[in-house]
Every structure is written in C-alpha cells, then in structure tokens.
C-alpha cells in the first residue's frame, strides 16, 4: 500500500514465464475489484468508476463487476487480514472470477498471499503500486499492472511555482509509516527539499494542526500528503481532512492527488485516479478476452500531472505563467464575461451601434459646421471682393474728399510761411492756422479710415453694434459721391441706438450697396435725385430703409433683383444685391424691395434687435 516514486521497469519481462495453460482456458467474464480504502474517500471511488466505465464499454459481452474495499488504512493486523480472507473466501466461493484487480501495494500484497487458496490460477491486475514495491514483491508471471511515480521533488517544484521566493515547507500528513501512498516521501526529503527549511507537522491532532497552520511564515508552502486520523480517535477521508486544514491555513497547500484540489489544495503534481482505473480496466479486459497476463508487461501509467486550482491561484496571486510548463488549471471561475456572454454581446453590440451612430452624427455635425464655416468664409471673401468693387466706384469721391482737406492744408501752410517771413509775425493767426490744419488733417484721416474699413478683409465676426452709427458712417462715405453725382442724401435715424449682433463691415457694405444702387437708378434723371435713409425699431426688430426717387423697379422684377447675376444695369455684375441679401440672412435678417407709391424704389432690411 505504499506508493513509491522512482525506479525503472527494466528486465521485468525476463522473469515472466508464459502461462500457456490458463490462457487456453475459457476465462470467467467477471472482475473482482479490491482496493485498500474505507469506501468514503473519492480517490478509490474514482479509480473504480473509471474502471467500470471502461469495462462496461467493452462490447464483446457483459462483464460482472465485484468490488471490495479492504479498509486497510483504518484496520490492520493478522486477525483482521485473516477475517478478511475468510470473508472473501466464503463470499466468492461459488463465484467464478476472471481477473482480480488489486489497487494499492497493500492490496496487492494480500492478494498475492491469498491467491493460491482463494483464486488459484486467476490472473491479477494491479494499479497504484510503486515500481519499487513491484520489484520487492517478486510478482508471479500472471500478475501484471501499471505502476505510478509520485516524487516529492515534483511537489516541491510545484511549491516553488506558487511561492516564488519559497524558503520553507511544512509537511502535513499522518505518520509516514501509516501513509498508504506517500510514505516514500520521507526518504526523499533530504535531497528534494535541500536548501529549504522543513517543518514536519506530522501526527498532530486536528486542533493543533489547525492552529499551527494559521501562523506559518510568509515565504512558506504547505505540502499535504494525507491525513486520515485526527489524533483524537476520529477518522477522515484525507480529502475531507484537507477541507478542515485549508479553512485555517495561512499559506497555499500543495497537494498530490487530483481529489485534493477541490477541498482547498492549490494543486501540484497530482495523481489521477481515473488514469489508474482506466489502465487496470484495459489490462483486465484484455485478459478476459483471452490474452495471457504474462503477455501484458508491467508499465508506468501516466497518472501524475501538474494540475492547479484556479480559485486558489487567485487567492495566492499565482498567475498561469508561474506554473510548471504543461500545467492544467481547474475550477476556473467563469468570468462575468463568460457567464453573461450573450447578454454582454448584445449590450456591447448595442453600445457599439450607439457609438457608431454618435460618431456618424458628430461627423455630420462637424461636416455641417465645416460647411457653414466655409460658406461664411466664402461669403466673407465674396463680400470683400464686392466691397473692393464698391470702393473702386467710390474712388473719385474719395479722392475728392481727400483733396478738400489737402488743399486747405496746403494753402494754410503757405499762409503760415508767409506770416512767419514777415518782420512781426502774428502768432495768434499762426495758431488759428495750425488749428485749421489739424482739423483738416483729422478730416483726411477719417476719410482714409472709412476707406480702410471698407477695404478691410475681416473674418466674419458678430459684435454688438449700433446700426444708427453704421448708417451714419455709410452716408458719410457716400456724401461726396452724392455731390459728384448730384444726389441729395438724407438720413433720418431713430433717436435710440439700434443694437444688433452683427459684422459691422458687412452690414455697412449692405447699406453702401443700397445707396449706390439708388444713385445708379437715378442717373437718367435731369434733377431731383434724392436718397433717403431711415432707421426705426419695429417690434423687437430693427428696420432700415433706403429709398430713392427714381423710376422704381418693374413689378415682375421685384423678386428677381436679388438673384445672382441678375442685373438691370448696363455695367452691373448683378452680384451686389445677392451678396447683400446673403449677408443679411447670415445675420438672421430679411431683405426685400418695394416700389413707393410716391415713386421710386425702397429697399428694406430687417434685423433682430439685440439688447447690449
């Protein structure tokens, strides 16, 4: 019953003598499964279940299965063994057995002893037996089976994997001598645990054990073999005992059996009971089906593999990368994502759709914004070009306006020179002259400022402006033109300031354009050319009108005059009014034309009043 790791199967086959006679006999189609457990723990049960599955899967014909648990971990001694033998002898007297399956070294030893008496000539298949035990027991030729190699070095490697800076290990288990599977570790400690501080918490009571395990040092790991006794008269299946231990342990518990993973072991190189059961089953079935046991060599079963408990890994901050290569992870808790995959997918899909929609809308919005900006820039550029055209038309009147103060300045300067050349200069007069020169200079610079304002290329900007001022300034600019073209200009502004949010340069351009248009409309008249500008407040809106005394606009053209490239003038481009209307609409305003009952045309601009 002691499993030992190590040893090679060499030369075993040489001892085997072919058993021709039994092979020729018709084997009973039944298997007696004997194990050393007490029926409670999961480990041996798993071996049996695995074997049963394999045996049942054999389709040739039905195989009867008997199972006996010898409970060798709790009971021992000659008397017990004798009673067991007697029991089995009586129980199976009339039952032909095809193959005996013995699980564990202790079972195999008993079966070897009892066979001659109880089951003469019946071949034996063993499992869960250490290679060293196999050699020691000197097996009969019709005994075959799979050996296991469970090495302490592997478990320590696992301990180093889960505690990277490991400096001590604590062994937890029953007295080495009472161990049915792990007793071989005792001899291995010296070499496998070299360089580590080793604490053996062996043979303690459960109470003591739980206390000790709660206060282990930081850089340590627990190596759990198996606990059957609580030292106070109670027996546990070792998996259950592990559960109690794990409750209090303050360090990760490295285990060596697959069945210890769930109760709280972090994992390690663990024995896989199902592999053992499967190997035994396949051997047994082959023998029942006619093969000689001696023809099936003893071999190592690949029943130890590195397997870890994901939940414990989370607790001890062990990542997958820390584990020995080829490790398997069990009990991986499905993440929220795995658990609610479909719901999550739908939510994400909806979210993505929303994001896409929002992006598209934002993109559209940006495009619209860009387009508006571009349209405004285009308008600004076009407006600027048109202002240049207006300025060109006004150049003669501008020259005239500049010429006046310049002439006065020249004459005044010459007069001053003359006075200064006289024997007794009249300084009072000089002073007067200088004051006049200054006034004229200011007058000239104002003309230039007006002109510059008209030619300025400015980005469209909304500011709080007084339309009365804009009107006055436009009429000032046009006054000289009025003189030249013999047009009388009148401006009647309302007394209160007319605040609007707008671009001063562009709105002034609109007014200049209307005045210039009015003048053009009256060119053919011999006299009485008049332009009247008016401003008034009309129900939260500002109303500007520019009317002339010309012949008016043909009724069918009243709508068309604002269309681009529509013109009634010989030399007009037809863009002035179209630009003017665009500017007004960019200011959220309206612009229209009408014929006056007393003759002539009137243009109206209505803009929203804005409180400063």
């Amino acid at each position: 019953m002691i499993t030992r790791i190590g040893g090679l199967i060499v030369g075993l086959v040489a001892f085997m003598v072919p058993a021709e006679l039994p092979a020729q006999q018709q084997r009973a189609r039944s298997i007696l499964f004997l194990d050393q457990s007490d029926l409670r723990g999961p480990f041996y049960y798993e071996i049996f279940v695995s074997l049963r599955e394999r045996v049942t899967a054999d389709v040739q014909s039905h195989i009867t299965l008997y199972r006996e648990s010898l409970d060798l971990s709790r009971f021992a001694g000659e008397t017990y063994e004798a009673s067991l033998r007697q029991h089995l002898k009586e129980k199976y007297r009339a039952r032909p057995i095809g193959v005996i399956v013995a699980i564990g070294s202790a079972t195999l030893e008993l079966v070897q002893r009892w066979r001659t008496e109880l089951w003469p000539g019946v071949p034996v298949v063993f499992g869960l037996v250490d290679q060293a035990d196999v050699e020691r027991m000197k097996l009969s030729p019709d005994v075959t089976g799979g050996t296991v190699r469970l090495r302490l070095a592997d478990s320590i490697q696992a301990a180093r994997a889960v505690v990277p800076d490991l400096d001590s290990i604590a062994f937890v288990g029953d007295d080495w001598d009472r161990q049915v599977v792990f007793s071989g570790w005792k001899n291995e400690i010296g070499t496998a645990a070299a360089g580590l501080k080793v604490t053996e918490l062996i043979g303690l009571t459960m109470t003591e054990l739980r206390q000790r395990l709660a206060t282990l040092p930081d850089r340590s790991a627990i190596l759990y073999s198996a606990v059957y006794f609580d030292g106070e008269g109670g027996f546990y299946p070792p998996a259950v005992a592990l559960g109690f231990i794990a409750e209090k342990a303050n360090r990760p518990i490295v285990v060596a059996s697959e069945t210890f993973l769930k109760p709280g072991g972090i994992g390690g190189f663990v024995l896989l009971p199902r592999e053992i059961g499967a190997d035994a089953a396949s051997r047994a079935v082959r023998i029942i089906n006619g093969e000689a046991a001696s023809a099936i060599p003893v071999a190592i079963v690949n029943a130890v593999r590195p397997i870890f408990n994901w939940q414990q890994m989370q607790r001890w901050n062990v990542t997958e990368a820390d584990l020995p290569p080829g490790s398997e992870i069990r009990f991986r808790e499905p993440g929220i994502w795995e658990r609610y995959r479909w719901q999550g997918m739908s939510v994400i899909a909806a979210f993505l759709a929303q994001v896409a929609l929002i992006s598209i809308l934002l993109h559209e919005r940006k495009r619209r914004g860009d387009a508006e900006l571009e349209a405004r820039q285009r308008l600004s550029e076009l407006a600027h070009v048109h202002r240049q055209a207006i300025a060109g038309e006004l150049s003669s009147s501008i020259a005239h306006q500049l010429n006046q103060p310049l002439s006065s300045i020249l004459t005044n300067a010459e007069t001053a020179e003359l006075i200064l050349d006289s024997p007794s200069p009249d300084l009072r007069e000089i002073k007067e002259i200088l004051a006049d020169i200054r006034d004229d200079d200011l007058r000239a610079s104002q003309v230039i400022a007006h002109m510059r304002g008209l030619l300025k290329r400015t980005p469209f900007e909304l500011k709080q402006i007084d339309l009365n001022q804009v009107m006055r300034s436009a009429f000032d600019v046009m006054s000289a033109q009025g003189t030249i073209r013999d047009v009388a200009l009148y401006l009647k502004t309302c007394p209160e300031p007319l605040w609007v949010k707008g671009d001063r340069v562009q709105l002034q351009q609109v007014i200049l354009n209307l005045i210039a248009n009015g003048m053009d409309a009256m060119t053919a008249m011999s006299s009485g050319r008049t332009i009247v500008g008016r401003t008034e407040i009309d129900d939260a809106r500002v109303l500007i009108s520019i009317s002339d005394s010309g012949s008016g606009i043909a009724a069918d053209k009243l709508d068309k005059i604002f269309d681009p490239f529509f013109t009634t003038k010989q030399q007009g481009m037809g863009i002035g009014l179209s630009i003017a209307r665009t500017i007004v609409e960019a200011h959220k305003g309206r612009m229209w034309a009408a014929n006056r009952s007393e003759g002539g045309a009137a243009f109206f601009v209505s803009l929203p009043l804005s409180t400063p």
Partner: protein
Amino acid sequence: MPGTVHIVDDDASFRTALERRLRKAGYEVATYACAQQLLDRLPDEKEAGCILLDVRIPGLSGPELQKRLAELGSTLPIIFLTGYADVPTTVKAIKAGAEDFLTKPVTSEQLLRALEQALAHHETSRSLKAKLDALRTQLARLTPRETQVFELVVRGKINKQIAQQLGATERTIKAHRHRVMEKMDVQSFAELVSIAERLGILSRTSGEDSQA
C-alpha cells in the same frame, strides 16, 4: 493789383484758408457757400474783381453759375477751382469764357498768378468798357441831324454829297460837322472814324440807318 476776389466753395475750411491767404496778398475777399448766395448779392462790377468758383458745389453747379452770370452781363472773370478736372468740363468752361481752370490742391503762387492775370484782364476790359460808355454818352448827346451827318462823314462822304443827300446846304452840313467834332471831343477826322469803328457804327448798313 488790388481787387476783390469772390470765392464760391462749399468747403468752409477751404474758404477760410483761401480768404486768409488772399488777404495776405492784399486782396479784398468775399466768400459764398453756394452759387445762390452770389446771385443774391451780385458783386459790384465797377471794382476790379474776380470769381474763384468750385466746379462741384451743391445746388447750382459752377458751370451753371457761369452761364447765369454771362446772361446777367457780368464781366467778372471766372477762375474755376476743382478737385477733379475732367476734360469735357474743362473745355466747356473755357469755351464759355472762363479765365482759368485750376486743380486742387493749388499752390498760392499758381493761384496768385492766375488771379493777377484775371484782374488785369478785368481791368483792361473794364477801362475799355468805360471808354466806350463815355463815347456812347457823347454820341447820345448828338442831335438826330448831327448823328446822320456823323454816320455819313465817317463813311467818307464829302460835304457836298451829304448836303445833297440830306437836302441841306453845304454850309449847314459844314456847321453840323463842326459841332459833331466838338461834341465827340476829337481834333481830327481820323479820330472820329476810329470812334465810329469802336462803337460799331461802321458795321451797320448805312442805308437803313440813314433812313431810320
């Protein structure tokens, strides 16, 4: 040469500057903001004078004023001053008898030279007119018979011919002739012819006149 300069310009500052400068040069100055003001108080033609006229003034324009003054028989020379001299306007003004056409800004030197010339012209035409006026006055003092004799004499008729034409004696004609010489204040026959020439008597057809 002293005289009065009449400035018609709508720009007050320019009027003041010009007035100041011209007074320094010794001229009398009268200013008018528009053409109508000048028409309202027409300058005295007897004094030496000149009009400085802006082409573009509100209301009646410069050239229009020029026309009106000519109609009124004004002899005041007109110098146009303009900030913007286009060829058609200039030519029209000069043809209509403008003395000069200056472009603003104008230097004092330019302006004063033009003024001097204009005033000299005015002076000349004024004295010429005064002389003619005197001659006309003298002519008006002749009796109808004396006038007839005068007109025939200057056309080179001898006394005998005149006497025959007027149905008088040669001696009577001689006496008339003597009185004409006296009244017209001339010493020689040549002088008398010259006066007749200046008064435009010679260009008239003698037949009609003689019968008038």
